[in-house]
């Protein structure tokens, strides 16, 4: 079973809104967007473009791979593939907004916080997500959310980002066996 949560129009509208909120909370001065690989990467780019429209200036963007920072890095994942992190700006003193497609347990964000802090000491770190699906296992919450939905453990969010826009769908885990 698959149910559409956000279609490309809803995603575009929601991103426009959270871009406005990010600007409202301090403009684009000293702002930097860091997408969590790989789902957050294209969203960070889209938010940067929206902020350019709103504020006349795009914040720098980067991406971060959290593989080496996972709390199960040494046990649960034999030989995962590490992707490249790309932080082409000075983190020190910046207001960093982490961007991801889905927040669930919060463990990915915990790892991303550690990863960003190893690049320097930002002034503050905020979090922006496309979908907050509930189910947190750590006291971590997004500052900017396009859509919040409470899902059971048997369900999950699939985000597909294509050239013609992004879709977020709710899937029953049972129908996705083997993936």
């Amino acid at each position, binding site marked *: 079973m698959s149910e559409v949560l956000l279609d490309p129009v809803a995603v575009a509208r929601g991103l426009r809104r959270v871009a406005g909120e990010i600007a409202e909370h301090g403009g684009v001065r000293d702002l930097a967007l860091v997408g969590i690989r790989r*789902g957050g990467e294209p969203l960070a780019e889209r938010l940067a473009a929206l902020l350019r429209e709103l504020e006349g200036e795009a914040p720098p963007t980067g991406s971060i791979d959290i593989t080496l920072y996972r709390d199960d890095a040494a046990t*649960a994942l034999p030989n995962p593939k590490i*992707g*490249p992190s790309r932080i082409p700006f000075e983190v020190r003193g910046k207001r960093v907004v982490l961007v991801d497609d889905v927040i669930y*347990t919060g463990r990915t964000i915990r790892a991303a916080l550690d990863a960003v*802090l190893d690049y320097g000491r930002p002034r503050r770190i905020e979090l922006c997500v496309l979908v907050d699906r509930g189910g947190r296992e750590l006291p971590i919450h997004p500052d900017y959310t396009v859509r919040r939905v409470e899902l059971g453990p048997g369900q999950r*969010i699939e985000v597909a980002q294509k050239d013609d826009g992004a879709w977020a769908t709710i899937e029953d885990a049972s129908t996705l066996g083997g*993936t």
Partner: protein
Amino acid sequence: MGHHRGRIHPGGNVTTTPRARYPHRHLLGIEALERTEILSILDAAESFFDVSRRSVRKVPTLRGKTVINLFYEPSTRTRTSFELAGKRLSADVINISVSTSSAVKGETLLDTVKNLEAMCPDVLVIRHQASGAPHYVASRTNAAVVNAGDGTHEHPTQALLDAFTIRRRKGRLEGLVVAICGDVLHSRVARSNVLLLRKMGATVRFAGPRTLLPPAAEALGAEVHDRLEPALEGADVVMMLRVQRERLAGTFLPSTREYSRKFGLNEARLALAAPDAIVMHPGPMNRGVEIDPAVADGSRSVILDQVEAGVAVRMAVLWMVATEAEGEPIAGA
């Protein structure tokens, strides 16, 4: 894979790949590795290379793991490189060298390993003068074993860091011509390198005095030359090996000066290689013997790049064997 995040990506865009990326428990030699496994290590090393260039040169990946460097032969570079690699992964690293160990008191290798095992190390990095020592230990310990050089047999992490350095400079390994020059007969560096480079599709030429060329070089897939010049002709990579002083005193070679005159790499000889050829040396160098200082310090030398690559490659190796040492992966995690 990645299910805990409650998402999958289209197009196989997952953050993990199966255990098959590095299905071995140890790293004992290049010989046992598949081409794809070598590529996995080199690709992982690229990410670790970036870690060493950040403001905080450390990741928490192997927190709580213990790495023991057990060195039965003197080594500064390799031991330091493994030590730094372990520390940058947040592992606890212990160094044991022969001069401070109980080996001088007559304890056998196996007894030493059994004693160390009581300290529950996750990884044992071993250098030993006897070929096959790491294999012997690997079959008798619960820790993952990494060969840091065994006798005249293999030095796999050196070959991997050499390949990493070549790939960064040349963009590829396949199709390159690599000249490996000097005391090939006694060199585990040469042996691991020819095994790796042949698997990756490079051409390897050995050059050295006839007394220092291995009898079975052709079986390893290398061309053999008893003069330096034909081996250098058009080469993309020139790898000079260290001449071991003790061999110069023996029957293998007449004298240092004679060796340098015939087999030393100087500017004139390097001109025979490809115009963009790079010069490598596993260290430590005998300046003025196998390599002229002008070449060692010249613009085509990547000798210090090799040292930097060593840390990244060893981080990748420690990470791969330490995660493997944990046993079966958690299903669906």
